Each structure stands twice: as C-alpha cells, then as structure tokens.
C-alpha cells in the first residue's frame, strides 16, 4: 500500500478509466487489434493499481465476487459459446452470427464474441487473483 496522497487520489479515477478502456479494447477486438486477453490484462492491472493505492481488502469488497469465481464464470461462458454449435448441427466452436436490430441499428452478435467475453473474464479473474495475493504478502 502506497500512502502518497497524489497516487491515492488519482487511483480510483485511473482504475475506472482503465476498466472502461478494457471493455473498449475487448469489444474492438473482433476485427481490429484488441480482444479478450489484452482487455482482461488491462482490467486486471486496473484492480492491481487500486490494490496498490488503497489496499487489497477494498478491492475485494469492490469486486464482490472472488476473482476465481469471475474466472469460473468466464470459463463457463467460453464453453457455452462452443456448445451453442451443438444445437445448430455444426462442429464444436463454429462461429455463429445473429443480426438483431436495436432501435433500428443492426448489431452483429456472434458466439466468437461470447467466447471473447469468457476469455476476458478468465484473464481478469486469474491475473487479479495472483496480483492480489502478491500485494497481500507485500503489505504484511
């Protein structure tokens, strides 16, 4: 835990900015550089920064779920994304698309994207868990 005033003041804003940026990178990832892994890393570093500034237990409280639970949900999402193919009669992990309209705008949604969400959560969960364990030890 670092007690400099500047860092502790800036950290919450930095964390929220990084989290928003991580979601941006995640969504951008389908056809441009970005994606679940890098987005997850950015989110995990956001939590790590918050942990360095304000201590580990506020991060755990703010997360509500334990980081490994987040990773578990991500793994489940990834598997579900692959299993959807079963109902469409195509091999496992085939990318399937739907094009629903929201307020007149066509939004392409894909199982690939669902899988990417899963990756994002797995990476966020595991790396945050490791980072928080390291920071906890540091503080002792």
């Amino acid at each position, binding site marked *: 835990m670092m007690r400099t005033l500047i860092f502790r003041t800036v950290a919450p804003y930095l964390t929220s900015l990084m989290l928003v940026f991580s979601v941006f990178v995640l969504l951008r990832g389908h056809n441009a550089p970005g994606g679940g*892994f890098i987005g997850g890393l950015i989110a995990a570093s956001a939590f790590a920064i918050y942990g360095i500034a304000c201590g580990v237990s506020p991060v755990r409280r703010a997360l509500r779920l334990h980081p490994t639970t987040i990773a578990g949900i991500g793994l489940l999402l990834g598997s579900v994304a692959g299993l959807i193919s079963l109902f469409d009669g195509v091999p496992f992990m085939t990318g399937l698309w739907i094009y629903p309209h929201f307020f007149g705008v066509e939004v392409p949604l894909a199982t690939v994207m669902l899988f990417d969400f899963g990756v994002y959560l797995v990476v966020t969960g*595991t*790396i945050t868990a*490791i980072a928080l*364990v*390291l920071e906890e*030890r540091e503080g002792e």
Partner: protein
Amino acid sequence: MEALMAVVIGIFFAVSVYLMLSKHIIRILLGVTILGNAVNLLIFTAGRIVHAVPPIIGEGNDVPNRITANPLPQALILTAIVISFSFFAFLLVLAFRAYQELGTDDTDEMRIAEPENEPVPPLGY
C-alpha cells in the same frame, strides 16, 4: 533475414541456458522467461519470413490475390505467449512464497522435501 533471426534466437537460448544454470530461483525464472521468448521467435521464423501483405482476402475474392504472410505462426505465438505469461505469474508467486517460507532462494539449500543424511532403510526383516 532468417540467418539474422537464427543468430538472435541462438543468443536468446544461450542467455536463458546460462541463467537457468544458476542456483538462484529468480535467475532461473528469468531464464525460463527468456527461453519462452526464444521459442516464440523460433516459431515465428519457422513460419518463413517473406515480404508479404497481411493475410486478408479482399472483397469479392475467394482467395488472396498476392502472397500473404502466414497467419498460423502468429496464432501459435499468441497462444504460447498467453501460456508462458500465466506460468510466469504463477512461478513468480511460487518463488516468492518459497523465499518467504524457506528463507532462501538458493536451490541447494532447499532440502525440506529431500532432507540430507536420511537414515538407511531396514536391511533385514
């Protein structure tokens, strides 16, 4: 280009082997990380280095109309990077824990699991 890459990869391997020969865990860890990067470069070179465009098929075509870069090594490297990154994170925690619990990062002094001067097992019934 391949020759230059081969030399670079060779240097990476040499550095990593030198580091892994050390007795200290943290140096071994750095050695393993550099080894991972050496392998990534190796995969990249194994996919052939050519002057080429990105492997994107233009609109209206079924096949790319020019020689494109090989996308597979990059996918393999990405997977390998992800794996080696997570291993690095885990090993870092493990090395840190080992240093805290055992009070040393010298592998010669880590003899808890295999103590020296153990008694000889019974020689008769």
